[in-house]
């Protein structure tokens, strides 16, 4: 089955995931050694649980690795193969980048402006072709949410440079 498109990639991804789980386990064990144990009686200290979780993650990660190498889980490999073929990475990456930009812009631009820009931008990345409509929806959503949260719900949202205009 290795000659089918994406299958090599799928198995590779499963192996990387297994390594990531093992890596997380190592992080937990390193973290457990950094926990200071204050005086006073405790049958089980604060560092025990991180160590247990670390050991378990390493063990489970090793089992995952086994199922992606020597004892390959064929069903799972096939499932990941179809995923790998269907994935469009540029869209995913851009969508994430847009999202991070949105979070960073919330403070400086304010909620209303950031949302009015982000919504049409993100919709465009996700394949929307009617940008004017999306822009209107973005502005409407930004204004309505801002007013509802600040005026009705008493939750503060950043006004940004629209501060003099907004209530």
């Amino acid at each position, binding site marked *: 089955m290795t000659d089918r498109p994406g299958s090599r990639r799928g198995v590779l991804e499963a192996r990387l995931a297994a390594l990531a789980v093992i890596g997380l386990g190592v992080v937990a064990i390193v973290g457990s050694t950094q926990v200071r144990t204050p005086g006073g009686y405790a049958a089980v200290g604060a560092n025990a649980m991180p160590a247990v979780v670390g050991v378990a993650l390493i063990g489970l990660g090793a089992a995952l690795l086994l199922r992606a190498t020597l004892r390959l889980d064929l069903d799972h490999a096939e499932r990941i193969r179809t995923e790998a073929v269907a994935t469009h990475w540029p869209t995913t990456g851009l969508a994430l980048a847009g999202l991070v930009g949105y979070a960073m812009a919330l403070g400086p631009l304010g909620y209303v402006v950031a*949302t009015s820009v982000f919504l049409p931008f993100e919709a465009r990345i996700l394949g929307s072709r009617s940008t004017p409509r999306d822009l209107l*929806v973005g502005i409407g959503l930004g204004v309505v949410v801002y007013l509802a949260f600040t005026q009705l719900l008493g939750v503060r949202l950043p006004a940004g440079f629209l501060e003099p205009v907004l209530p």
Partner: protein
Amino acid sequence: MDVIGSLLGGFATALQPEYLLYAAIGVTLGTLVGVLPGIGPALTVALLLPVTFDLDPTGAFIMFAGIYYGGMYGGSTTSILLNTPGESASIVTALEGFQMAKRGRGGPALATAAIGSFVAGTISTLAITFFAPVVAGVALLFQPADYFALMVVAFVSVSSLVGHSILRGLVSLFVGLFIGLIGIDVLSGQPRLTFGVTELLDGLSIVVVAVGLFAVGEALYAASRLRHGQDAVVAVKGRVMMNRDDIRRSWPAWLRGAAIGFPLGALPAGGAEIPSFLSYNIEKRLSKHPDEFGKGAIEGVAGPEAANNAAFSGVLVPLLTLGLPTSATAAIMLAAFQIFNLQPGPLLFSQAPDLVWALIASLYIGNVMLLLLNLPLVRVWVKILEIPRPLLYAGILVFATLGVYSAANSVVDVLIMYAIGVLGFFMRRLDFPVGPVVLGTILGPMLEAQFRRAMSIAQGDLGVFLSRPLSSTLLLVALAVLVVPYLPRLVARLRGQRTAVPRLTFGEAPED
């Protein structure tokens, strides 16, 4: 009866016009958000959490009850008309419901789901009313060792009974436990796994984790494959109401669904997946029309929907009486309680009786409102399904950001939530279940605290978990849950059969 008196008191509170309005808003918002494809009840509750910040606790929880039921009902609409269940408990509804919709019977499918949800919801609210105070009384006898054992049962069942692989379920659970460990240890006050990052000292809130996994993870996953076109919404043609035959076939399924759903939901066994699958299989076996299954049998919608709803109510029993959330949605509800400085558990009934009984009363009211709201408005909800997918997911991301940002006004929280979203995206791709992560995050610290308390009381003797009858029984149950799914395979091997016998699973369609 004391219970009746308390309940009437609860109704007196919940029926005040102000609170009725909150309940109506909750049901409407819950349905509105729950109908959106890809959004299940857990995410609905998490996203709408900020809406309740400004209310008094009673008002907030009345609104919550509405959101909770509305989110569930909205999810079934999506499953039936779009075949994209928002959460694993609705997968079964989609099996028959979508087939009914394709054959022009979407209306009766939605109606049997709505009425079934109402019937089962009301029966199980009655059960909560009489059952919860009893459990709360028993729970007073629970010691740390017993709590620990109970949480082990919850962990084992959520990771081994749901999903394709026990191994991947356990990995998800331990990733959740890892996330739960981040921050200051409650017992010793020491920071753990923060690696010097001040923002991590308070730990990761369950809302950040759940919204990241469910909303951002789902949106990124959808983004990665949006170029493959949009699923078509099946139009609701003809009558919405059921005919006499539909009703005759539905009502026994509703009752059986409620009878299966409530007790299984009340056990710490991981929510509504198992009961809805069990109900489907039972309906299939008992049906006089077994040939219709797979082609749109109404019992296959009525039973699982009732079981789903009853189980969701059943989950409230361990949540309110033991403080134990056993599903992702319950985990968010617990977070909501904590925002209002309330600690669910055996003492909640004695310390905040007004709130508890108002909440229970509003479950009855929410159910009635849902029925009144949904049957006439079916065609409005269907319109929501037609929102273009790119705009929908962009909107989900806006609300996910809003939900996390407004909770603490922190951009760092939002970025952490996105990072967890990336984790959720890869988990979804690689077929790791996300539910165990949420449960591990919230139950992990509770499990650890009870374990360490039990060990301190027993002066470091591990035998304490085996010497107490309650905790040793519970641990045996956990072991059984881990072994039972492999029994068919084991028996087959002992008989010398060579054919592969699959492990028993719930919560996923059989692999094809």
